[in-house]
């Protein structure tokens, strides 16, 4: 009996050892076979803190700072650590009332009692001073610095663009970006995002269960430093840009000025514009909505996206194309036959130069007729289809009807109608010269963006070629600037220089000779060559002017477009362009009275509903 009971020890040992073996097998699975626990442990204890690089700065062509980063402070709170808080004092310093304080604290607690959340965002350096002094009195609160974009001159909003937080879509498209990152949303900030942004770094810290930092992971072995973004050295001339914006202050429209020999954009205005600082920091949300719903569409970049009828400035291009095709000659004359198309009173033009100078509508009606009604060399029949197609090709070469490739996002291409368009437009192809003749004088179906107009002025200034207009000359470090080699190629029109000289002479006449339409653009000592346009549209006429100066060795080519400013190109756009030319070439404007007149003038009449306005709404 005793022995039987004694042998029961083996059963008890068996039970004990069985439990031990089960536990060892379990540990084998937990610790050796399954490595997901190691990852879970890392997810628990490692925090990847992004090190944000400083975004590149943007300078003007003379080294003036256009955009820089300013330190702002986020006041962070860890609710759990808040003790003996002098609520009244804190509220006073931050500038909130007690109710706001309570809602914010509640929100922070809802998020986490242990982890920091922002209590007040983006406090400026000035405002933060007094808070900083007393911060020691508020345990649980601390400051976290970050940088925001600032614009010392509040200028060139449409060129520079703005920076904003990435949204879900952007994160999906490009995994570089993480929630809370900033990205260029428009303008140069968007186009040069990859150059400006630099490279993010990352720091791995150990945290405890309450999210408190406990030091670096393996002494920073896996940390990476951030690399600051590169600066942009733009071609914008700050003084000219400021002056152009001053001139456009009370108007709608645009100004684009280009240095013809390089294609560098000197100033770029879309009016109405806004202070780029409005879209920075805490105020962005409200301001953005305000700008978005403004009926004059200040967010809409007219210089790049408004496809306007070019009006009479188009005639210069028509003349060059017709001469090149050999359908007219330099001394071809057409009578000013007002039965074809309306015109103002002037003597008939007996050559191309005078036709440009006097901007004769019937003359260019005939010129366009000659272009369109050409014999197709393959069929030997006169067909508008053929004429239109070779006219299209010639127009594209002059930078119309296609995207120029400026270093800004979202440029429109303008519109040069082609045969397929007219086949669709006039169902069944019932179209010919007589249905499309309005194109001859820059009306009808053609659409041109102001940038293309300025570019065309540059082509005339260069007597036949252009370098794609662009905004950035150099990028990189102050001491290690790299040339922007994207824009060095000359695009030739393939039209002989002698024809261009006729255009130059005609445009000189526009400003300097009796019968010219832009006598107001004349400047003492500076030979300005220009061409006016008066673009008819649903509302009051647009006032258009392109010019370059000086006539020989031109330094600047400009397009000015003033919307719905009843009165021709000579009335508004020409004098504005003239003031800009004087400002740029002379460095100062001597015609003070004229300057004042046009700065204060507000010629634009109330806005009719237009195609692009509706379009921009859906953008």
């Amino acid at each position, binding site marked *: 009996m005793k022995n039987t009971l004694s042998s029961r020890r083996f059963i008890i*040992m068996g*039970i004990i050892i069985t439990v031990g073996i*089960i*536990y060892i097998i379990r540990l084998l699975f*937990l610790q050796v076979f399954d490595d997901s*626990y190691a990852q879970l442990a890392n997810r628990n204890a490692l925090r990847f803190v992004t090190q944000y690089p400083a975004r590149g700065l943007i300078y003007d062509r003379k080294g003036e700072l256009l955009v820089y980063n300013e330190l702002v402070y986020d006041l962070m709170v860890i609710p759990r650590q808040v003790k003996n808080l002098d609520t009244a004092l804190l509220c006073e310093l931050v500038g909130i009332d007690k109710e706001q304080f309570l809602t914010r604290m509640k929100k922070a607690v809802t998020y986490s009692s242990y982890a920091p959340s922002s209590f007040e965002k983006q406090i400026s350096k000035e405002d933060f001073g007094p808070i900083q002094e007393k911060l020691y009195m508020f345990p649980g609160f601390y400051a976290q610095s970050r940088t925001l974009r600032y614009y010392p001159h509040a200028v060139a909003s449409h060129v520079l663009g703005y920076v904003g937080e990435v949204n879900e879509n952007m994160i999906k498209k490009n995994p570089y970006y993480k929630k809370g990152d900033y990205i260029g949303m428009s303008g140069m900030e968007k186009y040069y995002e990859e150059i400006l942004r630099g490279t993010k770094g990352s720091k791995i810290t150990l*945290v405890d269960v309450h999210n408190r930092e406990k030091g670096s992971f393996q002494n920073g072995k896996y940390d990476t430093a951030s690399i600051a973004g590169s600066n942009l050295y733009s071609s914008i001339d700050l003084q000219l840009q400021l002056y152009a914006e001053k001139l456009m202050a009370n108007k709608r429209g645009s100004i684009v000025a280009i240095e013809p020999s390089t294609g560098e954009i000197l100033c770029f205005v879309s009016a109405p514009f806004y202070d780029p600082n409005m879209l920075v920091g805490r105020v962005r949300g409200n301001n953005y909505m305000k700008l978005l719903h403004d009926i004059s569409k200040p967010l809409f970049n007219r210089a790049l996206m408004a496809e306007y009828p070019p009006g009479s400035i188009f005639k210069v291009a028509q003349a060059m194309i017709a001469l090149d095709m050999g359908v007219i000659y330099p001394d071809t004359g057409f009578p000013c036959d007002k039965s074809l198309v309306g015109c103002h009173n002037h003597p008939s033009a007996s050559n191309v130069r005078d036709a440009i100078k006097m901007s004769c509508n019937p003359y260019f009606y005939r010129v366009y007729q000659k272009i369109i009604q050409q014999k197709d060399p393959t069929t030997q029949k006169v067909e508008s289809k053929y004429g239109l197609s070779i006219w299209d090709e010639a127009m594209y070469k002059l930078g119309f009807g296609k995207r120029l490739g400026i270093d800004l996002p979202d440029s429109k291409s303008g519109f040069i109608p082609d045969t397929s368009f007219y086949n669709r437009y006039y169902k069944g192809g019932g179209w010919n010269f007589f249905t499309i003749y309005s194109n001859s004088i820059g009306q009808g179906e053609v659409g041109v963006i102001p940038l293309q107009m300025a570019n065309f002025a540059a082509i005339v200034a260069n007597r036949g070629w252009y370098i794609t207009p662009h905004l950035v000359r150099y990028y990189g470090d102050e001491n290690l600037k790299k040339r922007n080699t994207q824009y060095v190629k000359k695009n030739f029109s393939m039209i002989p220089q002698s024809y261009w000289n006729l255009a130059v002479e005609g445009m000189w006449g526009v400003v300097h000779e009796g019968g010219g339409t832009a006598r107001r653009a004349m400047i003492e000592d500076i030979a300005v060559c220009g061409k006016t346009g008066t673009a008819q549209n649903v509302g009051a006429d647009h006032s258009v002017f392109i010019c370059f100066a000086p006539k020989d060795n031109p330094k600047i080519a400009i397009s000015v477009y003033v919307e719905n400013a009843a009165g021709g190109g000579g009335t508004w756009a020409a004098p504005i362009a003239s003031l800009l030319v004087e400002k740029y070439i002379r460095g100062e404007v001597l015609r003070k009275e004229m300057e004042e007149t046009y700065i204060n003038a507000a010629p634009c009449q109330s806005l009719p509903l237009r195609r692009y306005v509706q379009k921009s709404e859906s953008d």
Partner: protein
Amino acid sequence: MERRERGLLENIDWTTILTYLALVFIGWISIYSAVYDEAHKSILDLDARYGKQLIWIGVSLLIALFILVIDPKFFSQTSYLWYGIFIVMLLAVLAVGSETKGAKSWFGVGDFGIQPSEFAKATTALALAKILSGIDVDMKNLRTKFAAITIVAIPMLLVLLQNDTGSALVFFVFVLVLFREGLSLSVLIFGAAMAILFVLSLVINPYVLIGILFVITIIIWRLNRKRKLSIWLCLGLFVFAAGVVLSVEYVYDNALESHQKDRIEVLLGQKSDPKGVEYNVNQSKIAIGSGGFFGKGFLKGTQTKYNFVPEQDTDFIFCTIGEEWGFVGSVFVIGLYLYLMVRLIKMAERQRSKFSRVYGYCVTSILFAHFTINIGMTIGLLPVIGIPLPFISYGGSSLMAFTLLLFIFVRQDASRMDLV
């Protein structure tokens, strides 16, 4: 006197003492690692938990030494007295004790507290050994059974009243001692069957389960037809089992507290609550699992040190071992326990005195219960039941009580050659 001293040193089971010291040392450095803080590195800092544990270790070693030098008969002679004292203590703690984590089981004196229930296990072991070593004791005898069960049940109920379910559960393990002393194997099997039935009734729909039981009953009856197994016995067992199944739900809903039910449901996979009830177990598994084969190294554990694991120096101390010493360390510690328990059984079997033998089995059983419940909980095999890991977990009462428990037996063993 001199002869006896030499005899004592020769007869002491040194391997047991070495194993004990190893476990205590592992506990101490694990506590140091679990609450390690760059700012307070000194392992001797008496303000920190590892410093306090060092004091407890010192006190425990003094107790051990004291036990080794006194007359071994002292304990067998005074066992009822100690048992009585601690029953009174358990009653007193219910009246005037302080509450920690929902259990009213402490006598608090400043920072230090004493937990009578830890010692009550040892005194119950003494009393059980005493009563079973009496003359005319036979486990087949109903009176013996009743007496033994009463001895165990009284402290168990009192601990249960303190709301310390974990410690109360430990008292069930004395069934192993009774088994060794002659309790029928069928009781053990019956107990195991009830436990399985309990778990199954929680997992499976009761009516389906009853159906399955019926089928099993029929099969058993058919297979045993030749042995003329009474159909009535089979049916009787079936009706009893069905009754158990149907009552489990009622007992479960009414007798258990909601946090206990949650812990069981989480373990059975019926409930998912990673931030709440499941959190402890999940974090514990993550800590142990992330240790890998060789562990992260001493003081390199992130999960335990940074408080992802709750109670990382007391009930969940095994996590620190698993994370920092890996599979190798965990198996080493489990090995030490298994070695100690098997060793204690062997020692118990070599006793000439029945008191010593029963007491030896009591010690083994109590260690086994703590080992099983505690480690089973940290590796997610058992529901969360808060009881310490013997010799390793932080805590004065626990360490002193286990030292007392073990060394009384070591002392008995050392004088096993003496005349009974």
